[in-house]
């Protein structure tokens, strides 16, 4: 037994080494944010001289955080519920509506799933041209409308699976009781697909949150900037002021990590449920 125990101990140490390495970039970032720019350039490895929040004050003064956060929240608050409502309706009809033949419904499903293969980066220029034509370019609407469309493939896939898993008997009982299709969906079936809804919400949210390209192409000008564009802004404005940049990035990252740690069970299980399925 002894060699095996050593083996598993070595594996554990290896795994925790990776865990600690994951933290290093973030710790380094925080460390830099308390140093002066001169220190960073001349003595990269020196420790900060105490907790000096000068960089943070500087960053908050110079970076329009409130506008960025406000814009991002507007996009999420409109796009996320809208995308989810449309996906629930479509998935319910595609999974359950027997007035349409199964093979036809299956074709619609496949059409949606095709989107998973297409890299979103190839869609951006045509969407940009459309938004310019529609006079929606440089408005948050351009992001909101696009994100609703982009969320469709993954949402549909996850929600159809969830609706398919509900036994017919439940539905029959509801129909005999005189439910309408809308009542059946919102009163009876929806509570049963809650886990899938959580998954879809998280995917859609992370898609919006992580986006950089679309926002970069669609938005121009300070008043419309979203959080995801902050990186570009830092790089462009403060490329030589490392201290300010480190503080600026820390301000954005730390709250995200905190929210994540609070909600982590929900986020991790939500983002993986339904992802593994051959």
């Amino acid at each position, binding site marked *: 037994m002894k060699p095996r125990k050593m*083996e*598993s101990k070595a594996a554990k140490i290896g*795994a925790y080494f*990776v*865990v600690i390495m*994951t933290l290093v*970039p*973030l710790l*380094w*970032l925080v460390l830099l944010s308390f140093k002066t720019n001169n220190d960073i*350039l001349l003595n990269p490895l020196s420790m900060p001289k105490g907790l000096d929040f000068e960089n943070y004050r500087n960053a908050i003064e110079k970076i329009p955080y409130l506008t960025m956060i406000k814009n991002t929240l507007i996009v999420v608050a409109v796009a996320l519920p809208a995308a989810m409502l*449309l*996906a629930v309706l*479509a998935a*319910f*009809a*595609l999974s359950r*509506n027997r*007035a*349409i033949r199964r093979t036809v419904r299956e074709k619609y499903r496949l059409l949606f799933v095709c*989107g998973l*293969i*297409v*890299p979103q*980066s*190839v*869609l951006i*220029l*045509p969407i940009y*041209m*459309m938004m310019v034509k529609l006079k929606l370019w440089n408005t948050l609407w351009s992001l909101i*409308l*696009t994100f*609703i*469309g982009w969320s*469709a*493939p993954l949402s*549909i896939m996850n929600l159809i699976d969830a609706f398919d898993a509900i036994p017919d008997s439940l539905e029959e009982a509801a*129909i005999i009781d005189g439910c309408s299709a809308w009542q059946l969906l919102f009163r009876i079936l929806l509570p049963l697909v809650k886990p899938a809804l959580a998954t879809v919400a998280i995917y859609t949210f992370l898609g919006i949150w*992580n*986006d*950089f*390209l679309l926002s970069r192409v669609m938005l121009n000008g300070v008043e419309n900037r979203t*959080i*995801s564009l*902050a*990186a*570009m802004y*830092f790089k462009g404005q403060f490329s030589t002021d490392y201290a300010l940049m480190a503080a600026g990035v820390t301000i954005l990252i730390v709250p995200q990590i905190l929210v*994540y*740690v609070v909600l*982590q069970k929900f986020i*991790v*299980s939500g*983002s*993986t449920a339904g*992802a*593994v*399925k*051959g």
Partner: protein
Amino acid sequence: MTRFYKKRQFYAMVLPLLTFYLIMYILPVAIDFCYSFTDYRGVGAAPFVALRNYSRLLRDKYIGISIKNTLVTTGVMTLIAVPLSFFIAYTLDRKTKLNEAGKVVVFAPYVIPIALSALVWDFILNPSNGLVNSLLNAVGLGKLAQVWINGPTLSPYSFAVVMVWCSLGFYVSLWQVGIRGIDREIIEASIVDGCSSFQRVRFLILPLLKDTLISIIIFALTGGLKIYEIVYILTGGGPIHKSETIASYMYTVIFDNMEYSYGMAIAVLECLIAIVFVVFFLRSSKKNQKES
């Protein structure tokens, strides 16, 4: 039941999302395809030029470099992330507080927007005052210090490391879902039978998790094809387009050179590569499944 559901209702429920999907997914691909046969530069007319953009694709040496870089980054990323994520998920499988905390830490970068993660890594990889080279210099291994980014060769490998950092936790949790789904009794039987832990992983657990492996590899491959933010923030594709990936080169062509049509030809190429990736991989994995 057929009378309960109405055809009209079906269309009323499906069409709204379908419309968004067609306009934001299918129509753009069609526009890419159509404009790739023209010469449109953002203003004025779009004269038909047949295959000229595509013959230019074949002669453009930056396309070759971009494809190579994309494949290197994607390949290296997949080769590191897939085994490493399995190792972590398997080793930290027992539900102790410490193990759970470890996995929370590994997943954390996944919730940071990639563009910000790239900026964080700039502080690590920057050749002049980044953490890696500073450490190497400090311990007297200055000779090992490299131009990790913005140099002639190493950028795509550095991108891969950043990608691993960003996505490792996601893969770990995918593995975990798979591992938790395995029947404990099978594992215990193998322990009684005297399997070594290597044998157990190689001949028992991995074959049982084939579906998980396939999804993770598909996630990694398609994720690698999309890589853009990291390039944009860390090197901007430079020096002289040496670290460009397909996506980043496409945007250089479109928004810096204003060659819309040529950019769309690159987009068509990127789509084709994505389709080849997915179809080829699904085919080969299906074949494997039939054989075993």
